[in-house]
């Protein structure tokens, strides 16, 4: 059914249909409304979820870990500083192989304090062991919340999954979102079968004990294997979901007019929508430009993205956060994927920090800038200097 709703509502709607056993959340702009919608569902008896309005995000993620270890299906949501506070426990969730799904309303990290969008929060959790997916629209946020559940809980994966949606741009703006029926979602998501749940009192297990130099390394390698299992699962879940929804999710990224493009922008999140408009306009003028919009950021689909960009003349990789002292993290991901391989001219554009607006003119400037790009340049778009 098609409805107009905010990104918040789209995420809350997906959560309602999944109906997890436990949701532990703490208010933070621009996430709070997700929790508010969900609290209303709980209070109205529409879902049987236990909602725990904890005292901080650190407690939220800790409660999620406890509930997930007990065998519950668990979802949470946060943003920015909230994620920063969760990160300690997010590492634990990943290492305990707990399939906790999280909506992350992307917001710049302090300081200075700022409530608007950039991707510094997602980048902070880059190495946490959580799978990370970026949504372009409220529709994609809804769709990936549902798919995330299946990816997280797959027996070969069993890892936390973060669905990123740009704070305010997506969370607070209303868009048309087509939802599936509750029945279809229930069937798609299925029943959750936890591994070694603590509540299985007949088979007592110990979670979270020491692993000293004798075992720690092997456990981390096993965790990496979980990540390595993601791509195949991701594609399988996408395929199944595409059939159900009629929407075309195929691959780790969306290739928009990419095949014959010479100059290409790579970007994650809602800016891809602006970039598509610009690609269309420049195409009408006969310019061979294209877009690669990354959906799956962690694990990073190195080979597939490198294959898609090989042969292009120039590529602008747009990062909405800086890896201070180096380039943007997405730039580093993509250029390292070309190790030992001939690649296009790559330029890194840092954009939109702290919610700085990214109008179409900036995207035009990026495509224009690719005409005289020096390899490996770090540029800033929309910055006053």
């Amino acid at each position, binding site marked *: 059914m098609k409805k107009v709703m905010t990104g918040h509502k789209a995420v809350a709607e997906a959560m309602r249909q999944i109906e997890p056993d436990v949701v532990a959340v703490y208010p933070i702009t621009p996430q709070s409304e997700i929790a508010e919608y969900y609290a209303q569902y709980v209070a109205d008896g529409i879902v049987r979820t236990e909602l725990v*309005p904890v005292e901080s995000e650190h407690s939220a993620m800790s409660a999620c870990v406890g509930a997930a270890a007990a065998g519950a299906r668990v979802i949470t949501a946060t943003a920015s500083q909230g994620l920063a506070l969760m990160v300690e426990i997010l590492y634990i969730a990943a290492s305990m192989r707990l399939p906790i799904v999280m909506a992350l309303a992307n917001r710049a990290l302090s300081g200075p*304090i700022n409530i608007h969008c950039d991707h510094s929060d997602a980048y902070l959790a880059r190495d946490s062991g959580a799978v990370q997916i970026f949504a372009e629209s409220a529709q994609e946020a809804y769709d990936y919340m549902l798919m995330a559940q299946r990816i997280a809980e797959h027996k070969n994966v069993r890892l936390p999954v973060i669905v990123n949606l740009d704070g305010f741009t997506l969370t607070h703006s209303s868009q048309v979102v087509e939802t599936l029926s509750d029945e279809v979602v229930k069937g798609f998501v299925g029943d959750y079968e936890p591994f070694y749940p603590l509540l299985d009192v007949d088979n007592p297990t110990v979670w979270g004990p020491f692993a000293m130099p004798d075992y720690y390394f092997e456990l981390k390698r096993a965790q990496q294997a979980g990540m390595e299992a993601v791509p195949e699962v991701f594609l399988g879940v996408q395929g199944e979901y595409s059939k159900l929804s009629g929407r075309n999710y195929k691959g780790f990224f969306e290739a928009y007019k990419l095949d014959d493009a010479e100059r290409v922008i790579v970007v994650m999140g809602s800016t891809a929508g602006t970039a598509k408009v610009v690609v269309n306009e420049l195409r009408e003028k006969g310019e061979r430009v294209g877009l690669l919009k990354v959906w799956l950021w962690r694990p990073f689909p190195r080979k597939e993205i490198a294959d898609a960009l090989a042969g292009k003349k120039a590529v602008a990789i747009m990062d909405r956060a800086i890896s201070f002292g180096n380039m943007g993290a997405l730039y580093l991901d993509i250029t390292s994927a070309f190790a030992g391989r001939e690649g296009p001219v790559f330029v890194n554009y840092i954009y939109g920090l702290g919610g700085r607006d990214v109008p179409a003119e900036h995207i035009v400037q990026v495509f224009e800038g690719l005409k005289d790009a020096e390899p490996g340049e770090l540029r800033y778009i929309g910055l006053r200097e």
Partner: protein
Amino acid sequence: MPIVKPKPKPAPEVLPGVRHPLEKYLRTERLPHIWCSGCGLGIALSSFLYALEELEIDPDSVAVVSGIGCAGRFAGYVRLDSYHTTHGRAIPFATGLKLAKPDLNVVVFSGDGDLFAIGGNHFIHAARRNVDITVLCVNNFNYGMTGGQVGPTTPIEGRTTTTPYGNFEHPFNLVYLAASAGATYVARWTTLHARRLKESIKEALQHPGFNFIEIISPCPTNFGRRNRLGDALDEMRYYAEKAMIRHGVDPAEAEVVPGKEFIVGKFLEVRKPTYYELYRRKVEELFGRDA
């Protein structure tokens, strides 16, 4: 892109030709403030600033630290050395400040959610150590800034955006918590009691040790509206009717329960060595020198 520099704004006139009496303590270029009409934060702030003025405290000797939330804006509005910390971290920041500059009068000005949920751990430990700071907590019973969610002081059956049919969790009795954690000055007022609050802040500012004042405040936009408490004036009438001024009451007996009379006043004022005094004593004992 055009460079937009913030223009310095002259202080808004209260009435034609009338300046704000506390102008010297305010960053007037930041006004008007963002607080909702009827909010008690303005009264709390002016009580604090009048206390400074009446004590003739050198503004350079005062630092204000706040956390996140509506009350987090205090630090930005005062023309004093001030710091706006991340959520919950005002007290540890203030502790560091006090240790680095022991002569500074360090004031933490924040809200119930910031100080007692996400920052609750810091509160009890600073009180336990008797860190020589003054903590002013504006309690509006919910997270106002983010839209009115349930918090650690929301009363049983309190309606918030995350407890639409009533809260079932026990709230904190803040003065009891402060006293039992080790605070040496503990008081509670409402924003109706502006002058008594000011006098209490004056006492706290002069009292060595961990000082805590709870300031009960209306939140007409969020908590007040959802709990049908009327407008801010109605809430003030409610305080006038229900707040009983008593001093020296056992804080354990001083819960705030909606619809019932509640105690305001000074619960505790005792002197015990502060954290810094104990630290100096230990350094003297071990090394025979001043810390």
